[in-house]
């Protein structure tokens, strides 16, 4: 069995446009400020945590394919480019890249805009918008932007799907179909998703952004982190509750050393948190809960958890980190990342 390493990570979040900003927000541990989003027919807006405008316009937005893309593609692209930056420097472009983009709500901004236009008058609904409503659109743009992509899938599911994506990437590496594989999770916030979330969890704050892991099989390409385990997907069903699935996931990850980190998926909803809290009730070590600081980013949250875990290990703050993804309505999956051989270079302190 081959080993799988993390070659790089990338993140766009309400904290900013790179991993360093994510790290800083998590270190500070304070929930980030929210902004109002108006929903039709309501005087009181809902609160969301959007991605702030970048200090300077990202260069990649000059690419012709990204001209009309929606924010979800921008977040996915920025996170992906950050994650592959080290790889590109080492490989000079001669690298077969796999791409797995994971989404839960997907391209909702353009979907709402197009549907709204269509309801007003189908004859004038913009043909430019419709292609950007497709789940596969961000992957398509990324493949063009990154050029070296030879294999691409878009997976849809609840946030635990991000680790299904990581296992698919590991599989492609194992079969030598790719030299490295980017796993990207991204979401964009708009009023309708905030409204839908409000129906479930009045206290949850929707967030937008993206995160990316670049996996590789070559230890020389590694940034100092090794993927050690991804549990089975414990699917919720009539016979398998969310609590039972979370406990099974926890059981498969096994015992950790006292100093290991836990990156969990706890947010602001006691009801949603209950199964995960129960599964990890014996955990006494350090833990970080990105959703409590950044908000409910759906698939992006799952990516932030994995990025935060890898970043903490890469920077030597922890020897190992567990990720707990107890998804909202599909499955619970966990993962464990450890420090790779010390001879291997690590992520730089600015996250690049």
């Amino acid at each position: 069995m081959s080993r799988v390493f993390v070659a790089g990570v990338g993140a766009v979040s309400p904290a900013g446009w790179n991993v360093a900003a994510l790290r800083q927000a998590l270190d500070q541990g304070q929930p980030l400020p929210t902004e109002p989003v108006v929903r039709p027919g309501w005087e009181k807006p809902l609160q969301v945590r959007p991605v702030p405008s970048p200090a300077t316009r990202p260069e990649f937005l000059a690419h012709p394919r990204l001209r009309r893309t929606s924010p979800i593609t921008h977040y996915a692209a920025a996170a992906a480019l950050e994650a592959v930056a080290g790889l590109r420097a080492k490989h000079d472009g001669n690298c077969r890249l796999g791409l797995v983009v994971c989404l839960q709500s997907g391209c909702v901004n353009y979907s709402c805009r197009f549907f709204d236009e269509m309801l007003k008058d189908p004859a004038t609904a913009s043909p430019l918008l419709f292609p950007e409503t497709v789940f596969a659109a961000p992957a398509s743009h990324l493949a063009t932007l990154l050029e070296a992509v030879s294999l691409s899938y878009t997976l849809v599911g609840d946030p635990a799907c991000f680790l299904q994506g990581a296992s698919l990437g590991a599989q492609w590496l194992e079969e030598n179909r790719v030299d490295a594989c980017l796993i990207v999770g991204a979401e964009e916030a708009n009023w309708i998703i905030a409204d839908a979330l409000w129906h479930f969890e009045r206290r949850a704050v929707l967030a937008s952004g993206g995160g990316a892991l670049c996996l590789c099989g070559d230890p020389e390409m590694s940034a100092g982190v090794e993927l050690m385990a991804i549990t089975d997907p414990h699917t919720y069903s009539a016979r398998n509750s969310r609590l039972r699935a979370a406990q099974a996931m926890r059981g498969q990850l096994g015992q950790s050393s006292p100093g290991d980190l836990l990156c969990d998926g706890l947010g602001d909803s006691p009801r949603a948190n209950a199964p995960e809290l129960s599964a990890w009730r014996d955990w006494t070590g350090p833990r970080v809960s990105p959703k409590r600081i950044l908000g409910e980013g759906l698939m992006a949250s799952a990516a932030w958890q994995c990025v935060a875990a890898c970043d903490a290990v890469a920077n030597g703050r922890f020897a190992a980190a567990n990720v707990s993804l107890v998804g909202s309505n599909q499955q619970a999956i966990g993962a464990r990342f450890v420090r790779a051989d010390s001879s291997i270079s690590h992520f730089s302190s600015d996250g690049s």
Partner: protein
Amino acid sequence: MLFPLSPPPAAPPRVVVTGTGIVTALGIGWKPNAEGFRAGRLAFRPVSHFDVSRQRVKVAAEVDLPDALPPTGLSRRQVARLDRAGAMLLQAACGAWQQAQWQSADNVPLVLGTTAGGMSLGEAYFRQATRTPRRHRRQTTRAIHYQAQIQGRMVLDALGFDGPITIISNACASGTSAIGHAWDLIRRGQAKRVLAGGYDALSELVFSGFDALQALSPTVCRPFDARRDGLAMGEGAAAVALETLEGARRRGAAILGEIIGYGTTIDRHHLTQPHPEGDAALGAMRLACEAASVTPADIDYVNAHGTGTVLNDSAEALAIRRWAGGRAATLPVSSTKASIGHLLGGSGAVEAVVCLMALREQWLPAQGVFESPDPACNFPIVHQPQDARVNVALSNSFGFGGVNATLILRRWI
């Protein structure tokens, strides 16, 4: 564990199909569909599920769903929450499960392809949220059941099995990608059995989107015809029960066919247009042939992606010519989208089942409309019902965004 991966078997097991379920505008189940595809019957009619009075195009291939679903483990309340897409998926999954005579079990992966999931529920959510925003009735249910993974969970609950659910959304290649991924899982020893398929229902947003792009034919869908002017929309679902040959033989299952190859590539040319030379399509066909250890000379029938748009068909025709070489001149090709329209995430799965029908019953699926051959297509288009020796069939699916996927299926004797 998903990782570390278990060591692959010394030799990849052969993967056979022991059950199929199919739902199209031609009917539900094998028989009406086999008769319809063999004859090249057309199944289009005026759209009745939403208002198309202000659209350019007003027809599609709509499915007539029965009033009641087959008896399953779902409660009446669960059944009431299914939208059309979920109901079609469930029909197809039940058909495949029952034909395979599988029993309730743990750890049977479900791999599905879809582009829209429960889109009609999303549309209903949007309408209510914008027109009567203070009214919350059914909004929570819509928000849940809109998601494709919930439709997958309904299949698990209906048929009484547990296992991981993987939803692949590679646009119009989704159904083929799902079956190909399922084939991969069994070949790598990660599963003994997989239920796989694809589905999509007609939705107002998607219909309007293709209409806005002027990709829909205002006349009639005529793939590879010199006068082709666009695609036709359809809806439907198909599922296949895949298992190892060894497992199927051990339990004495009837084998319907074998999947022997899968290839997938990415076309980076444009979000909605294929590379004009068909490079990625060519790559997918070559990869699938390599996996299947066959050459174009071994292929007896190609079920083309064949949407009927000018750009898709010219690129695919060129790709087939480049891939098949001298064999192209005698290689039967047809697009069954002429009969049932483009089912998007469902098309690849339905077309795989059509290939199984052709392999099992030894006929070529006729393309119901074909009038003026495009000189760019120097291969014979099957446009009349005909019996034929079909041992190996190839099915192409190419998606918006550029994922190209090809399956190769073999007759089981």
